[in-house]
């Protein structure tokens, strides 16, 4: 491939990188207890939640930023971040989609996420979170018929306080880690899902996160509760405008799968990755964790192509006997992106099973690390884990790392871990080119094949998107 091609490809823009001209109410930068009180007051929260936030904040002030991840970035000035931004038109709150600011709807339409129900992706209910607030949730009526609650968490605090209070912070405790504590203190919005006993959620639920405002951080919090024997599939997508400065995204996702319940959580993360020189991009520091009770199943699938720095380990605590945890991941880094991502499978119950399939692709001058923990506790008799981590290197300036921690304290538990690292096979490339494909197309095809095991876990709508995303993200990586 010629230099010209490469330059051309690299210069292609991040397609979600536009900025929407939306008037917004944005809190001045800075973080103290007053800011937290302000956020809580703004949302009209009950006192228990304010106290909960303040407790998290005080814990946060005692904590230090973690340094163990294989990522490098200049210190983040938390005082320079605005902790709340909401589109002005939200002030009185839209009563229905018709009242949503047309500019906002246009923004989502541009992202390919139509919020008008009649145009909506077949069978997918969407909650759209713009900067700090949820702007629209579709199909709520239809979901309500099935007893499913799908609404912004800020609303759930008022409409279903008993559920929120019972489960919030039970999976990811307030002071779990530095960024989770920060999120607990300042979280502004996010999605709340409750699936009643025995109900199979009639459609896919999805949230699209969008950071628009400059100098803001996004701190959303998602809580999904699948009651006994229920099923739900949840999708999450993220984008942000191109800006030269780095922006912080520190989310917390908590999943509770009660006895026999199944939660499938899929993410396509396409936050702005920064430009080809490594300027700008999102710092994506996320804590995602689920607890699986008896016979329950939690399945995480993620396609990570965005963000300048990613620090993310969707995990499963397999508390109940026979519970199942899965983690399917594709993480692609290009240019100067850095990712340190993986999972934890904590086997507590008997005959618990977990599967980890991780595919890392590094290109450009990027760094991509898999970090995982499989822990077999003394009580996890008969537990099984299988882990397969493969890394693909494209170009000689990138890096790929694998850090799997295996801790076993039960002799009847079986843990198997395998990892490989290699570059795109020259034979495969040769075959494709001999059949007339150009190098870039060939690599994209081979990479897609490399990721197939993970893509097949994605819901149909996302699988197509993920494949395209991979192709776009790889552009300019083949020399």
């Amino acid at each position, binding site marked *: 491939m010629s230099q010209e091609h490469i330059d051309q490809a690299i210069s292609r823009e991040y397609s979600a990188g536009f900025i929407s001209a939306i008037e917004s109410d944005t809190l001045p930068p800075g973080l103290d207890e007053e800011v937290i009180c302000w956020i809580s007051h703004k949302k009209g929260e009950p006192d228990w939640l304010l106290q909960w936030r303040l407790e998290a904040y005080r814990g946060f002030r005692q904590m230090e930023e973690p340094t163990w991840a294989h990522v490098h970035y200049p210190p983040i000035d938390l005082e320079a971040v605005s902790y709340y931004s909401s589109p002005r038109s939200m002030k009185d709150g839209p009563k229905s989609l018709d009242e949503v600011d047309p500019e906002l709807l246009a923004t989502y339409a541009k992202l390919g996420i139509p919020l008008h129900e009649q145009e909506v992706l077949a069978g997918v209910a969407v909650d759209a979170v713009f900067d700090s607030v949820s702007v629209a949730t579709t199909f709520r009526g239809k979901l309500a018929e099935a007893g499913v609650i799908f609404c912004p968490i800020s609303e759930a605090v008022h409409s279903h306080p008993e559920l929120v209070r019972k489960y919030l912070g039970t999976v990811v405790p307030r002071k779990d880690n530095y960024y989770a504590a920060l999120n607990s203190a300042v979280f502004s919005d996010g999605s709340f899902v409750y699936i009643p006993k025995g109900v199979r959620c009639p459609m896919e639920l999805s949230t699209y996160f969008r950071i628009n405002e400059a100098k803001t951080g996004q701190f959303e919090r998602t809580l999904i509760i699948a009651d006994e024997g229920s099923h739900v599939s949840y999708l999450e997508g993220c984008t942000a405008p191109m800006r030269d400065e780095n922006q912080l995204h520190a989310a917390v996702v908590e999943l509770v799968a009660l006895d026999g319940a199944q939660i499938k959580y899929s993410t396509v993360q396409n936050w702005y990755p920064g430009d080809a020189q490594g300027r700008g991009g999102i710092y994506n520091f996320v804590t995602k964790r689920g607890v699986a009770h008896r016979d329950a199943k939690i399945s995480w699938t993620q396609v990570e192509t965005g963000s300048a720095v990613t620090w993310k380990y969707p995990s499963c605590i397999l508390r109940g006997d026979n519970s199942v945890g899965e983690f399917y991941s594709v993480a692609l880094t290009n240019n100067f992106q850095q990712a340190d991502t993986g999972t934890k499978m904590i086997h507590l119950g008997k005959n618990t099973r977990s599967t980890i399939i991780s595919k890392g692709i590094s290109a450009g001058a990027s760094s991509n690390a898999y970090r995982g923990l499989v822990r077999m506790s003394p009580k996890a008799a008969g537990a099984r884990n299988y882990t397969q981590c493969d890394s693909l290197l494209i170009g000689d300036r990138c890096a790929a*790392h694998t850090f799997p921690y*295996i801790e076993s304290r039960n*002799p009847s538990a079986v843990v198997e*871990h*395998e990892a490989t690292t290699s570059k795109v096979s020259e034979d495969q490339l040769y075959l494709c080119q001999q059949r007339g494909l150009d190098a870039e197309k060939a690599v994209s095809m081979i990479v897609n094949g490399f990721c197939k095991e993970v893509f097949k876990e994605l819901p149909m709508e996302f699988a197509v998107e993920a494949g395209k995303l991979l192709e776009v993200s790889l552009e300019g990586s083949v020399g």
Partner: protein
Amino acid sequence: MSDFMQQVLDSAATGSPPWLQDWQRAGRQRWQASTLPGRKTEQWKYTSLQGLQQRFVAANSGDVELSAAGVALPQLGGPRLVFVNGFYSPAQSSLESLPPGASLVRFSDADDQQAKRIRAHLGLATGRDEPLFTALNEAAMSDGVFLDIAPGASLAEPIHVVWVSANQGEAFSVTQRLLVLCGESSSASVIEHFAGGAGGQRSFTNGVTELLLQAGATLCHYRLHLEQEAALHIGRVQARLATGATLNSFHLALGSELKRIDLVVDYCGEGAHCELNGVYLPRGTEHVDYHTCIEHRVPNCTSSETFRGIVGDSATAVFNGRIHIHRDAQKTRAQLNNRNLLTSTQAEVNTKPELEIYADDVQCAHGATVAQLDELALHYLRSRGVSRAAGEVMLSFGFINEVIESIRCEALRDYLQPMLAARFARDPALVGQVA
């Protein structure tokens, strides 16, 4: 810092040659500037140094018969150097069979010419800013062994260097240091052998071995940690491979209260190869920790690593196997495999194979398992009439025997196989090679 350190430092002899005293001073400075790592230090996440927080005194003389220390050494035919409680034991050593082309000298006994060669090579593999326990090793280094193999020399018999912990009452500490220099295109075998410790005698050995392989050299290196019970050991082997060098390194550790061994192989010239294998067998409340690191710095090298462990009773095993491929190390082939058997509900294994890769044209793979014995293999044995219990020991032994079989030194294999078979209550006559 702790009492422990002061005692270890005090145990250093004062009458060393001036050049050694320089090393001691430098080591002492580095050691004093540092703190003992805790469990929050990644490298020590699974291994506590609590056992070192006690008083260790300088060892007495090493005037103890090996038989009295319960140690029986194999007859390997080559030269042997024996140290008891850190003291050289001329009576139990034999250097007569040292072949031409090899020189074996103690640091404290080196003449000017030899001291010059030691000073030119000591610390080349470890580097001066190396880890804490290397600083301690140097601070307390009053002696050491230098094996100098001339270019082109080919040694048929292995050089056997033995360190024995024998009873002397109070807990004592020993500093062990070995420097092996393999000249261009030479070939040799070295067996480092640690023994003793039975009977509850407490001791702490801080061992550092440097292996320098010059172009085209071949070295078979064996490090046997057969010391037991309260014989604590923190050890490190650092190897440097020049162009076309080959290192075959085998490690064995029976457990003791604390055993932590770091193995580092540095590739400094193209076309080098290393095979690094090991077996660990802690039981009771023992703790064994192997940290290995393969540094592929240059292109066109290969490495292959296999470690297996059987962990019983309430013992703990830690394995950390890192493969680091530097930016320029294209065309590297590296693989690592770590398998563990847990044989008790109280036992624990923590393993972490790591890949850190900065070059793209490489083929690397690693695998790790923790499991019980293979049920199907057990069924096959039982279908031939072998009882479950007998089948289990047979398979356990077979599990490690696969690695033992990789030992190239036949005399050593013949020594270890029956010894380990006996540990698994197997009939020693059948376990070894069939005549």
